[in-house]
């Protein structure tokens, strides 16, 4: 059953212009950043180079791709539930013999498939240097994995926000608010006297950073895993409440 929902979501999305616009716009911006990094790096003397080319690329190109995906995910997610609530299409699924958790997973995986090409864009750009520069492929793989996990988190937040309202614009606003909060909450630590790094731990970019420098830590995998599951369960809860309330 889940594959039927995924196929429908992917098919419906790719016949609309939004994923193609995001992919094209994303590629133009990333290509520009990619060229900036190459130009700056090649202008440096060997002694001035403090980090490797791969590191420069992962921190800048992959790092910026994460910001792009953070804005793209809510836009792609809004039509999954919000739009369906708005025009009554969700009744088709509600009246069908399908479990709500299956619906949530089907929509989430469908969204993840839509976002995956965006996650691969930085890698595709960097691989253009495969024959002309020495690259650390392990680090590139770790960075791509980190970016994909961050995208999965953005998708889960986007899906949850989409389940909260029948207004797609409001859903995007809610998702971006949650994601921006999760981006800057780490800075709150500066204003407190405590040494507890809870706020820092809550910030997604702190965890993505370790992937970008090529380190895969269990705590970072757990962070993404935990929050993805958390927002998916909230979505499932929200849909169940819709039936009950």
């Amino acid at each position, binding site marked *: 059953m889940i594959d*039927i929902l995924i196929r*429908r979501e992917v098919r419906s999305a790719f*016949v609309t212009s939004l994923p193609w616009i995001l992919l094209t716009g994303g590629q133009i911006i990333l290509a520009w950043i990619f060229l900036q990094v190459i130009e700056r790096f090649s202008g440096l003397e060997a002694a001035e180079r403090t980090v490797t080319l791969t590191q420069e690329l992962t921190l800048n190109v992959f790092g910026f791709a994460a910001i792009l995906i953070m804005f793209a995910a809510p836009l792609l997610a809004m039509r999954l539930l919000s739009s369906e609530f708005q025009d009554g*299409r969700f009744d088709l699924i*509600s009246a*069908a013999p399908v479990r709500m958790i299956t619906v949530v997973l089907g929509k989430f995986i469908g969204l993840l498939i839509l976002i995956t090409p965006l996650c691969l864009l930085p890698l595709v750009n960097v691989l253009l240097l495969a024959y002309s520069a020495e690259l650390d492929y392990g680090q590139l793989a770790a960075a791509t994995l980190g970016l994909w996990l961050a995208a999965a988190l953005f998708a889960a937040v986007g899906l949850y926000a989409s389940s909260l309202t029948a207004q797609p614009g409001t859903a995007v606003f809610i998702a971006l608010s949650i994601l921006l909060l999760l981006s800057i909450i780490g800075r709150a630590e500066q204003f407190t006297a405590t040494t507890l790094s809870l706020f820092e731990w809550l910030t997604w970019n702190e965890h993505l950073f370790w992937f970008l420098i090529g380190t895969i830590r269990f705590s970072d995998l757990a962070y993404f895993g935990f929050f993805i599951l958390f927002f998916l369960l909230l979505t499932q809860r929200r849909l169940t409440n819709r039936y009950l309330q």
Partner: protein
Amino acid sequence: METLLRITNLGRSFGSYSALSEVNLSLGRGEVLGLLGPNGAGKTTCLRLLSGVLAPTTGRIELHGIDLAKYPLKAKRQLGYLPEQPPLYPELRVDEYLKFCAQLHRLPRRQLITAIAEVKQRCGLEDSGQRLIGTLSKGFRQRLGIAQAIIHRPQLLILDEPTEGLDPLQMRMLRKLIRELARECSIILASHLLPEVQAVCDRVAILYQGRICFNDYLTTDQPIYGWRVRLGDGSTLMQLTALSGITGAVAIGEDRYRVLLDDHVDSAQFAQRVIRAGLQLRELVPERTDLERAFFDLIGVESER
């Protein structure tokens, strides 16, 4: 007749507002039940509860003895639901959409092609398989909405205002289709249009302010149209029956009569004859059919007229 659907003490509240309360109904196999009521009477809420889209606050719904709240997946397999607004994906083609709906209702893969072809043929969509849903007209969208509801051959079909927004020809075609479908499954149809319910339903339940206030079978006899007449003080039935062009008249109150006219006599001619005979004509109103009268009487409009 075997009971397919049993609704016991069904109620639904939204906060402190009670949208539906104490609804008790049962539906036999092959029966077409018309749920009639003015806008806001609770028809859509009732249908959403029956289709499992909403949970009831009180009561239970059993389909073939299966409790919809306890075993939703099992019960929903026997349901087909067309909401007020057909749940369509404008970016999909008709065939793709029907395939998705069939799979959603767990139709076996080997039956998909046959089921899609059959349902398209029944709903007059044979030549529209490759058309984008977004380009379909209102009538075709409605047909597609019905097609998705019947593709898995449900035992109970729930239709919410199925002819809303259709032209008279499309309405007639849809009514014919509903009568055909009634040979295979039971149907609950919500409408605020009396003629629609009279045209396709075996039974009617009138909902008003969230309660069922009338529930009876429609007679197969043609409705008798007559006229209600009110004459001046001191009139008698004899004076009225003495007029030409009247096939029958009965007194229904002081100076009030129900009159049946000859086929060739219209109300204007009758009024002239009454006046010429020196009887004071105070009132001349068309007599409604039983259902219509019941509908207006129950919702309290009659007294205002």
